């Protein structure tokens, strides 16, 4: 039944700054089932991208375990990790800066295949590139073009083809559609969904766009200032959000529907600095339901309903 492909345990990533310790990711744990999508949601500075990078060890976690198919990859040597990364790929947010401007589409997509010595023959490699291009919906004629000649949607398709080149098992999608226009966003979201169905891929979908994540994910984890505040299956989270932050976040999405008159929960102030945090609920300074207890410690993540976890003194 349960077949977890990736388990993150007590992952921490702190950065040393001149003003003190910056708690980018502060002791988070979650599990993803094979073939599913986990949505990692939050606003700028909540640590969602750092989490994505720490899972791939693109930045070294400060502590914690990342167990991929039963192996703690944090303990792997550089060479072992290099091999492991074939199974774990990433798609970046900005298709303008994540592609080398001096390489052609062919070179960009072929690079991981060549570097990992998967196909040594140049012509066979090109065949594979064409195959990947077809998979992601890029016309064959674009094989020798450069990224600057292409629009954002096509560039993001190159990023996806490059990630698929290694036949990964899990792909971390870090805001893959945020930089794209609405009509192109839908094209890319549909493509990612089709690829998941045909290849059995597992996704971690990092985003601030709750509408997209709702459409896309099986489970959702909401982060605030390096901590998980709520995690739940997607239907639960949208129909029954519990944490005050999740509720405010959901109420803040502008909905293009005139029949819907919602009550907006408006938050005061802005996200506090993640440096030298006091020992209290991270959301307390902005919370509209804050009680004394919230200022006296960090609330644990408690299961309030089956698979629905909340970190809040008021609601658990």
């Amino acid at each position, binding site marked *: 039944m349960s077949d977890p492909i990736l388990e993150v345990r007590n992952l921490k990533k702190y950065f040393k700054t001149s003003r003190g310790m910056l708690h980018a990711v502060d002791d988070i744990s979650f599990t993803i089932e094979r073939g599913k999508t986990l949505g990692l949601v939050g*606003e*700028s500075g909540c640590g969602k991208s750092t989490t994505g990078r720490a899972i791939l060890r693109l930045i070294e976690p400060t502590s914690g375990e990342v167990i991929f198919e039963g192996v703690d990859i944090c303990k792997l040597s550089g060479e072992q990790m290099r091999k492991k990364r074939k199974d774990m790929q990433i798609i970046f947010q900005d298709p303008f800066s994540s592609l080398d401007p001096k390489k052609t589409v062919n070179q960009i997509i072929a690079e991981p295949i060549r570097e990992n010595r998967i196909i040594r023959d140049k012509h066979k490699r090109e065949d594979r590139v064409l195959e990947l291009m077809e998979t992601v919906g890029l016309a064959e004629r674009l094989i020798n073009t450069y990224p600057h000649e292409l*629009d*954002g*949607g096509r560039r993001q398709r190159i990023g996806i083809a490059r990630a698929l080149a290694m036949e990964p098992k899990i792909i971390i999608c870090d805001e893959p559609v945020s930089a794209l*226009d*609405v*009509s*192109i*966003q*839908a*094209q890319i*979201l*549909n493509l990612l969904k089709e690829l998941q169905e045909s290849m059995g891929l597992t996704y971690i979908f990092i985003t*601030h766009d*709750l*509408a*997209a994540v*709702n*459409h*896309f994910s099986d489970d959702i984890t909401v982060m605030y200032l390096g901590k998980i505040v709520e995690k739940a299956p*997607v*239907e639960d989270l*949208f129909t029954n959000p519990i944490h005050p932050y999740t509720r*405010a*976040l959901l*109420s*803040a*999405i*502008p*909905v*293009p*529907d*005139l*029949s*819907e008159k919602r009550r*907006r929960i*408006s*938050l005061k102030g*802005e*996200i506090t600095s993640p440096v030298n945090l006091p020992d209290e609920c991270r959301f307390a300074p902005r919370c509209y339901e804050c009680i004394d207890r919230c200022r006296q410690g960090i609330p644990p993540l408690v299961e309030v309903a089956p698979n629905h976890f909340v970190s809040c003194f008021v609601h658990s």
Partner: protein
Amino acid sequence: MTKNNNGLILEVNNLVVRYETMDGIVRAVNGIDLKLGYKRTLGLVGETGAGKTTTALALLRLVPDPPGIVECEKLEIDGENILTFDSDKLDQIRGKDISMIFQDPMTALNPVYTVGEQIAESIELHEHVSKTEALKRAGDMLELVGIPRSRANDYPHQFSGGMKQRVVIAIALACNPQLLLADEPTTALDVTIQAQVLELMHELKEKYNTSMIMITHDLGIVAEICDEVAVMYAGRIVEEGTLEKVFNHTKHPYTEGLFNSLPNVKDRKAKLKPIKGLMPDPMDLPPGCAFAPRCDYATEACTQKVPTLTSIDEAHRVACIRYDEPDFHIERRILS
């Protein structure tokens, strides 16, 4: 100002903007008409390259020339023909009668001046008050947008993105303009901060009776803040009308496509229906209706002639030759 304006703060007829570059002519805006009543908010909607920002810049006469060439039959703001203004006169109205909130607060502010000085600048210029008085009023403006006046002596880099956008709004509103052009004012912000800023803009607009053009690609924001909508595609308005007409009685296939591309918060199983293909190159627009190559309803006739914006009723206009055919209807995914 003279009040010979039919109750309109803004009237534009046949605005055309093109950029003549070495590579060819970029046709950014291809003949649009705009009418905006006092205290009304118009949402100008469209995707990258639709010509939204160029339109706003043309209204302020800020399109760089060369390479930009602006042609317009009529451009009146509060009954004044802006086309006849020289640069001195334009300086007098920019920031006073008409001002703009730019998209990116990170680049719209000058990094070497304090935010107080930047707000005071336009007050000093337009209201002819002393620097001390202008700085005092800048402090008032900061408080108005929810920033303590003690921060007037801070520099932009000391503020977060949301705070910087508040400063940009304070600058735009400092001289109480009659017409505000807001170019994607919340696109760079987080959703909870976006909610705060939209609420603030709404309050201030009510308080000062400002008319506004809200440029955005987000139909959710339009639903929240606008009275009227104009949907732009390839430099033309393809559909316009009251919020209710455009949202609930959509007539143009492109507007339909925009709605159907959005993930639906209510129904997560619904498959997204993207608009096929890409926005046309403004240097090489297709003949006839510019949307025809991407349109599921297009016929041979659509590629023959540019459709004109036709009134369906007094509150709704569409530029599509097929809209009144008996068997033609738009398939809007049910939203609620």
